[in-house]
């Protein structure tokens, strides 16, 4: 988690937060009313192709950028409310988990930050992380909105998980198209922009990554399908497991 704090010392990373947030918010606003799924709460989020791509390219800047971008989407969309707090945390996870778990979800991950886009193993990891980060985002948002009495957990957790996973998978095409430009021409890949001592090492990365997997997938499947009568309790436990996992990453 160290880069999430130390990145604020770096001017380029701060600008990347703003740019990521602005792109995400602009896409959210453009498609906010296109295909609503639960009016005022969520819609078919075409913009969701961005957070995972941002995450693998810009690391911690993507986590803050996705969170702020979602908040700005709520502000311009007129849906700012207590639910925006959970939207902020959920979208933060959507931007944080892919880059943080890319090197730590062993044995599927090989521990290297570089994206080997010609390697099938990288794409298996990409697909898994798309599902896990989407489910983690969904569990946190659905738990919060169920607790506030806004939308039932079983419905919202499934909608967000599927919606975000599909968005992230389509985002793979965007990643293929822009990775070379960002890495070699613009030299804005996050581990090149940040000082190595500001990046640090995870506390217990592999344990944290697997805790996130258990919390995200367990919270979604149990709360939405197997024990939906106890959805709020399951959501709270799963959210705590996810957040503990994040602190270890």
């Amino acid at each position, binding site marked *: 988690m160290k880069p999430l704090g130390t990145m*604020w010392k770096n001017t380029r990373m701060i600008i990347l937060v703003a740019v990521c947030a602005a792109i995400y918010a602009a896409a959210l606003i453009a498609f906010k009313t296109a295909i609503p799924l639960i009016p005022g709460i969520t819609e078919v989020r075409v913009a969701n192709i961005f957070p995972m791509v941002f995450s693998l390219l810009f690391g911690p800047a993507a986590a803050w950028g996705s969170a702020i*971008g979602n908040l700005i989407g709520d502000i311009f969309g007129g849906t700012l409310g207590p639910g925006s707090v959970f939207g902020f945390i959920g979208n933060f996870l959507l931007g944080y988990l892919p880059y943080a778990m890319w090197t730590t979800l062993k044995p599927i991950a090989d521990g290297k930050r570089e994206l080997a886009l010609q390697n099938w193993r990288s794409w298996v990891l990409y697909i898994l992380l798309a599902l896990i980060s989407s489910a983690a985002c969904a569990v946190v948002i659905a738990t919060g909105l169920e607790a506030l009495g*806004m939308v039932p957990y079983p419905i919202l957790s499934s909608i967000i998980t599927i919606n975000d996973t599909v968005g992230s998978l389509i985002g793979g095409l965007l990643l293929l198209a822009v990775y070379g430009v960002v890495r070699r021409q613009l030299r804005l890949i996050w581990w090149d922009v940040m000082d190595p001592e500001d990046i640090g090492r995870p506390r217990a990365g592999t344990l944290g990554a697997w805790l996130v997997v258990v919390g995200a997938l367990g919270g979604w499947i149990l709360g939405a399908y197997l024990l939906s009568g106890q959805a709020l309790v399951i959501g709270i436990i799963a959210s705590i497991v996810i957040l503990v996992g994040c602190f270890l990453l």
Partner: protein
Amino acid sequence: MNIFLYLDENTWFHRLDSRTKILGVLLLFCMAMVFNHPLYVAGFALGLVWLAAAAKALPNFWRVRYLLFLLVAFSTLLWPFFAKGPTPLWSWGRLQVSRESLLYAIAMGLRLASFVGAGLIFLSITTNEEFTQGLIRLRLPYPIAFAFSTALRLVPTFAGAGATIVQAQISRGLDVESGNIFQRAGKFIPLAVPLFIYAIRHTNMLAMALESKGFNPGAPRTWYYDPQMRRADYLVLALLTALFLGMLSLRLQGYGQVLPRL
């Protein structure tokens, strides 16, 4: 199309300090969560409409009227199947609707509309600059506030660039209107790639421009604009806090509750 919700009026609400507006809307959100009986929540929602009229924010309510209606309708249809109550009204297999769950559902629809309404009043009386300034004055770290305000300023620029890219791609034969949801989402890629590259190219230039002017995210800052809390601000915050505590004490005595949950 104007994407901003701020309405440039000279009302008493507009003149409040931005910290008062932020803390005030948070208190309104808390108040909306106190009761779960539809009559009580409806009373609160009517109070919000009165506030919106006094703040001349009703045009924004009209702008999102369909959203407000759908929120109430959708919540009223959805919640009866998930909240359980003791007085059954209708059942079909595992699906059950009780009198309490129906009342709770109506209350939740009104609560959702109240959330949106309180947020709309706030956005109608607060400029983006005031919002950022208020967050800084409430001790949000400056680099985060700077990123937030920069993003707010960049959104219209990127939205405009996005519209130009859409027109350019359509003129080259891209059909963005046809196909199912997945096909239409896939067609977003030819639009997203140029938008992404256009936006990211800004990053290096913007960073160099800031650094050439001595930008240092951790340095102590001085302010040209130094807003002060006035007596009216303290009065508004005291009034809202008293109102919230009064509502909370009513709820704790058992008023305004159809189900023992939030």
